[in-house]
C-alpha cells in the first residue's frame, strides 16, 4: 500500500509535466508582447522600448518553444507565476490570499453533499418505489438537470432579492472592519467561520455562515443529487444480494441488515463518485462565486478570464490540475481502505 502511494506520488510530476505542456502550448499562442503584459508591474514601462526589450530578455519571452518551455517550468518551480493584472499583485500571492475562502466554501459544501446525498440515497432505496422514494428522486433529478448558473440566480433572487435572508459576499461591512482593522482579531486559519470561533466572536461566525449558506446550496445541489442517484442504485443492487438474505436468515434485525451489511457494501462505488464530485466542486466554484460575489479563487479567475489576464488563468488551471491528481489519489487509497477485495499493488 505504501509503495503504491509512493509510486503514485512519483507519477504526479509526470502528469503535471503533461498538464503544463498543454497549458504552455496555449500560452505560446500569444505573441511575446502579449505575454510580456503579465510581467509588467507599471504601465509606464511600456512607453520605453528599451525597458520593454529588457523585460523580454529578462523573461526569455522570444525564446524558441522548447527552451521557452524549460524556462517557464523553472519559473513555475520557483513559484514565479507572473503578475495578475486583475488582482494587482503577483499571481502566487493572489492564489494564497483567495484560496482559504474557496476552501471554506468547498469544505462546507461537502457536508450536504455527503450527508444528504448518501442519507437520502439510502432512505430512497429502502423505501423503493413508494411516495417518499419518488419525491426524493424527483428532487434529485431537478437538481441534477438544473444548470448551476440558473439555480444560483434563483437562490439569489429568492433569498436575497425577495427575502433578504442570505446576502452575497463573504462578510458584512461591520465584520470586515473587525477582520481587517481590529488589532485583537487574529487569523489562525483564514477560514473566517473557524477564526471567528477561535476568537470567540459568535456574531461574526453567524454572519460568515449567513453569507455561506446560499453559495453552499448552489454549489452542492448538483453534487448531492448525483451522489444520491448513485447511492440509491448501488443500495438497491446490494439489497438484492444473497448475503443480505443470509443476514436476515441469521435473524439479524432490519436496522443492522440495512446499515451494517447493505450500506457498508453499497458505499464502495459511492466513494469514488463522492471523491470526483468533491474535486469537481472546485470547478463549480467559478460560477457559484461569481453569482454570489464571493471573494474566492473562482470569482477572481472568472474576472481574470474576462480581462484576458492569462497568467492568472493558466496558474489556476495548473493548481486545479494538481488538486485533481491528488484528489484522485486520495479516492483510490480510500477505495482500497474500505473494500478488502481491492489491493493496491
Amino acid at each position: 500500500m505504501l509503495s503504491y502511494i509512493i509510486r503514485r506520488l512519483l507519477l504526479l510530476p509526470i502528469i503535471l509535466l503533461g498538464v503544463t505542456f498543454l497549458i504552455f502550448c496555449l500560452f505560446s499562442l500569444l505573441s511575446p508582447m502579449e505575454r510580456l503584459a503579465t510581467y509588467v508591474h507599471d504601465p509606464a514601462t511600456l512607453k520605453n522600448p528599451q525597458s520593454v526589450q529588457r523585460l523580454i530578455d529578462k523573461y526569455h519571452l522570444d525564446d524558441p518553444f522548447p527552451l521557452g518551455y524549460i524556462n517557464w517550468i523553472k519559473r513555475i518551480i520557483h513559484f514565479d507565476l507572473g503578475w495578475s493584472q486583475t488582482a494587482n499583485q503577483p499571481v502566487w500571492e493572489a492564489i494564497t490570499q483567495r484560496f482559504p475562502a474557496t476552501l471554506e466554501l468547498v469544505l462546507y459544501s461537502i457536508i450536504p453533499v455527503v450527508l444528504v446525498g448518501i442519507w437520502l440515497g439510502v432512505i430512497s432505496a429502502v423505501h423503493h418505489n413508494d411516495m417518499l422514494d419518488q419525491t426524493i428522486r424527483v428532487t434529485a433529478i431537478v437538481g441534477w438537470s438544473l444548470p448551476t448558473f440558473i439555480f444560483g440566480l434563483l437562490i439569489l433572487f429568492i433569498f436575497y432579492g425577495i427575502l433578504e435572508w442570505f446576502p452575497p459576499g463573504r462578510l458584512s461591512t461591520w465584520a470586515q472592519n473587525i477582520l481587517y482593522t481590529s488589532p485583537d482579531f487574529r487569523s489562525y486559519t483564514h477560514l473566517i467561520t473557524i477564526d471567528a470561533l477561535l476568537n470567540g466572536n459568535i456574531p461574526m461566525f453567524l454572519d460568515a455562515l449567513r453569507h455561506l449558506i446560499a453559495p453552499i446550496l448552489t454549489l452542492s445541489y448538483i453534487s448531492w443529487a448525483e451522489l444520491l442517484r448513485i447511492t440509491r442504485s448501488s443500495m438497491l443492487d446490494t439489497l438484492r444480494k444473497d448475503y443480505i438474505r443470509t443476514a436476515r436468515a441469521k435473524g439479524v434485525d432490519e436496522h443492522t441488515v440495512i446499515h451494517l451489511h447493505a450500506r457498508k457494501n453499497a458505499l464502495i462505488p459511492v466513494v469514488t463518485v463522492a471523491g470526483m464530485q468533491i474535486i469537481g466542486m472546485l470547478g463549480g466554484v467559478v460560477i457559484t462565486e461569481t453569482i454570489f460575489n464571493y471573494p474566492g479563487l473562482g470569482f477572481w479567475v472568472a474576472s481574470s478570464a474576462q480581462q484576458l489576464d492569462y497568467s492568472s488563468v493558466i496558474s489556476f488551471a495548473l493548481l486545479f490540475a494538481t488538486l485533481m491528481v491528488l484528489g484522485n489519489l486520495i479516492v483510490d487509497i480510500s477505495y482500497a481502505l474500505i473494500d478488502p477485495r481491492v489491493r493496491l499493488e
Partner: protein
Amino acid sequence: MTEALLQVKNLVKFFPIKRGVFRKTVGWIKAVDDISFEVYKGETVGLVGESGCGKTTTALTILRLEEPLKGQIIFEGKDLSKIKKSEMRKERKNMQIIFQDPYSSLDPRMKVKDIIAEGMLTHNLFKNTRERYKRVGELLERVGIPAEYMDRFSHEFSGGQRQRIGIARALALEPKIIMCDEAVSALDVSIRSQIINLLKDLQEEYNLTYLFIAHDLSVIKYISDRVIVMYLGKIIEIADKREFFSNTLHPYAQALISAVPVPNPDYKKERIILSGDVPSPADPPAGCRFHPRCAKARKICAEVEPELKEVKEGHFCACHFCAE
C-alpha cells in the same frame, strides 16, 4: 421418522406484476400455488423441479424471507406464518438456509469469523467474543477449513471453501432444519460430492433435518430419503426415494428421470422428450398444469385440475391417471 418437524399447509406465494406509470398490479406470478407437505425429524427431503417452478420460493417463504400470501407453516407445532417479524427473528435460530451461489452469499466486507459469529451474537449463544470465536474455529475445522483462516475475507477462498463457510455459518446457530437451496449446483463435480458427503456426516452428527432443493436428480437420489417433485408452483408427486425411482407415477416425473444420464455407454434407454416450454407461471394452463406437454393427456386433463392423492402408502401423485 414419525414426528413432523415442519408442516406446510396450503402455502401460497404470488408475486405481483406491476406495469405503467402508477405501477398498477396487472397480474400475479403464481410462484407457489397451494402446496402442502411435511418434513419429518432427521430426514432429508429432496425438492426437485425445473428452474422457475417455485422450489426456491418455497424455501424462502417457509423461512419468511418472503412473506407467504396464504397458508400455514407449522414448525414444531407453532404456526410461523402468523407470528410477528420480531418473534420470527427468534425462530430463525432453528431454521437456516444455505444458498446456491457461494460467491454472493457471504458479505464481502466481513471477515469469515464475523460472518459466522454474527448469528451467535444476535441470538446470544455465547457469553463473550472469545468463546464465540473459539466456537467459530471449531465449526470451521469441522467443515474442513483450518481455524486460523477465520481472519480472512470471503474472497480469499475458493467456491468449495466458501460453500463450506456457508455451511459453518448455518450450523453456528445449531438449527434443527437446514434448507439447502441448490447448495451444490454451483460447484464442480468433485467438490460437489465432497460437500454432499460433508452434509450427510453433519446430519448424523447434529441430528439435522434437510430440505434439499436441487434440479439434479442424481444428487437427490444420493442424499434424500423422500422426494417431492414440483411443476409450475404445484407439487405433482411425493414419494419415498426407493419408491419414487422404481415406481414413478407422474408423467412429468417420469420424463425427469428419463433425462438422468446413466454412466454406461452401452446402456440405451428410452428418453421421454418433453415438447414445448414451461408455460408462464403468470398464466398457468387450466386443468392439469402439465397437460399441454403431456403425452398421456386426455380431455379431462384440460378441464379438471388433478388433486394430490395418496396412491400407495406414502406415495402421493397429482395426475388423473396415476392409478392406472
